[in-house]
């Protein structure tokens, strides 16, 4: 009986995972998709638990209880603004599991392991530990335990690649001779070290790409586990995970007009200010405005596009910005939100924050959908976004961000920029937008400014 039940459970799981991902392509079916994936996971777990190999349930139950408690607490109490960290942490957990299972499988089966299985185990452990420490580093950077700026030193790429090469060579040796047990810890330790070294030179604003890439690695380590254990459900789930991560990182790279290798090894956004400092030294005047003045302009605006960026997440200003949008809508203006693909610290970061603040999703538009509309817009209100609005990406061939697709805010009749100070953005480039005649700078914390704008706008409307 078991010979049928177990494989059918895994088959159902694989199918339901695909159905689940398909569901999330549309708002209407998204939650149904989620339920399908949950059911799939249930099948996979039940299918595994009836496995005859499992004889001792004590530790499993303990781990279930502890894991469920931690998982549920995290799910309930993590604020939406901390979602990037949480995602990074869960990549780390998934990869750790894969690495540990690979380790246990190796010591259980050696010395007689076929070349194919040994390759799968080696890949599983390599990818697992690289992703584990890499994700922990990403978590540290996102949670600001570690410095978010890239840390670089001379010859860094050579050292990193050498580490990886040694780990890979040890892996190949172990595949040819699985009885060389001393090689295994070497591979695991080097992989873990490589994971740390890989993330050190990567800056905060490149995290959307890096998180996606780590997602893909975590998926591939599950695939490798699936090959090692000859389990098709693992292969399917891992392949889905891997392709999701890979696709997202491609989308992120394209949105910055940069290549994978540039993100991983380019140490972008380091003390890149040298060029800017040398070129533009003189203080140029900007037009700065108070919230009252801005509110007066907003009161007459018929159409407003709000451009949120990472600064909105840092200031946790999403609820106040939604209130501002509500007041503007009640005043008769058309209000929309424009999202750049790499705004924030992970793919879709801004969408989740705005959804949390109860902004309807059809009011939120992607760059491609809304860029043409800026020209017919009275006010573009930029909240905590910088590089993604910098016209230098279109005009200045020497700029490091040249060629990056940007939100076309400078076509709007008036541009308002909410910003804490004149500091350059992540790319370390001055934003020409701020010096234009049509631009009003509103200096201050995004949340406080939004509160002020709501207050002053209501006063203006009433008067």
């Amino acid at each position, binding site marked *: 009986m078991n010979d049928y039940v177990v494989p059918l459970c895994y088959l159902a799981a694989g199918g339901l995972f695909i159905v689940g991902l398909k569901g999330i392509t549309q708002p209407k079916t998204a939650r149904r998709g989620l339920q399908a994936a949950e059911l799939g996971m249930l099948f996979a777990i039940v299918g595994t638990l009836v496995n005859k190999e499992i004889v001792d349930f004590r530790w499993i139950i303990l*781990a279930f209880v502890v894991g469920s408690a931690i998982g549920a607490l995290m799910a309930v109490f993590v604020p939406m603004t901390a979602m990037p960290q949480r995602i990074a942490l869960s990549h780390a957990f998934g990869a750790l*599991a894969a690495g540990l*299972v690979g380790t246990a499988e190796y010591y259980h089966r050696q010395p007689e392991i076929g070349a194919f299985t040994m390759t799968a185990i080696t890949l599983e452990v390599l990818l697992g530990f690289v992703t584990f420490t890499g994700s922990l580093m990403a978590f540290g950077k996102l949670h600001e335990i570690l410095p978010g700026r890239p840390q670089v030193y001379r010859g860094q790429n050579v050292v990193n690649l050498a580490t990886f090469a040694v780990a890979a060579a040890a892996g190949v040796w172990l595949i040819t001779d699985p009885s060389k047990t001393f090689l295994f810890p070497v591979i695991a330790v080097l992989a873990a070290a490589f994971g740390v070294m890989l993330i050190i030179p990567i800056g905060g604003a490149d995290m959307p790409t890096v*998180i996606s890439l780590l997602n893909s690695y975590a998926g591939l380590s599950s695939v490798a586990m699936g090959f090692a254990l*000859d389990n098709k459900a693992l292969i399917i789930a891992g392949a889905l995970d891997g392709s999701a991560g890979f696709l997202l990182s491609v989308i992120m790279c394209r949105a910055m007009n940069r290549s994978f290798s540039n993100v991983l090894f380019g140490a972008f956004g380091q003390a890149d200010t040298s060029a800017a400092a040398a070129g533009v030294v003189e203080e140029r005047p900007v037009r700065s405005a108070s919230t009252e003045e801005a509110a007066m302009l907003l009161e007459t605006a018929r159409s407003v596009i709000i451009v949120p960026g990472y600064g909105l997440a840092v200031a946790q200003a999403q609820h106040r910005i939604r*209130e501002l949008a509500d007041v503007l809508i009640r005043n008769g203006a058309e209000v929309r939100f424009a999202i750049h693909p790499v705004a924030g610290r992970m793919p879709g970061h801004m969408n989740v924050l705005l959804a949390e603040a109860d902004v309807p999703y059809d009011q939120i538009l992607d760059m491609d959908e809304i860029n043409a509309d800026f020209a017919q817009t009275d006010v573009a209100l930029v909240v905590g976004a910088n590089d993604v609005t910098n016209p230098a990406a279109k005009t200045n061939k020497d700029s490091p961000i040249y060629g990056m697709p940007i939100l076309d805010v400078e076509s709007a009749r008036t541009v308002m920029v909410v910003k804490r100070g004149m500091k350059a953005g992540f790319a370390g480039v001055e934003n020409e937008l701020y010096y234009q005649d049509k631009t009003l700078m509103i200096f201050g914390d995004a949340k406080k400014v939004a509160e002020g704008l709501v207050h002053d706008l209501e006063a203006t409307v009433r008067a």
Partner: protein
Amino acid sequence: MSTAIESGLYVFLLASFVGFEVIRRVPPLFHTPLMSLTNAVAGISLVGSLVVAGSDRGVVSTLLGTIAVTASTINVVGGFLITDRMLKMFRPRDAAPKGAGPGSAGPSAADWLRARFRRGAAAPASTTVTVPTREVAR
């Protein structure tokens, strides 16, 4: 090449293509939920972890397995719950009809939960704007 390896490679190939084609259609709106859903699905490493933890292969195996099961369970439980919490927040314009619908008499359990979640995320809402009770997008 054994048939197990061969069929495994076929499954990998086809699943990757299906994954690409399906995920390509996920709108940027849902990129974060997509990520947290794939995180939950990656908790499938439970399948391997459970066997290692429960098949009595010695202390080290059991220990490694137990840690792996814990880590995977965090992903499965946490991943699904948080994806659900996120997806509940997305709603279209005019999701709540002006007239009180049958379900909108009082705050639902979801509203209650959301109110709880918010407390941790942001300062108490200001009193300048009263938000009408909104139906959660389903």
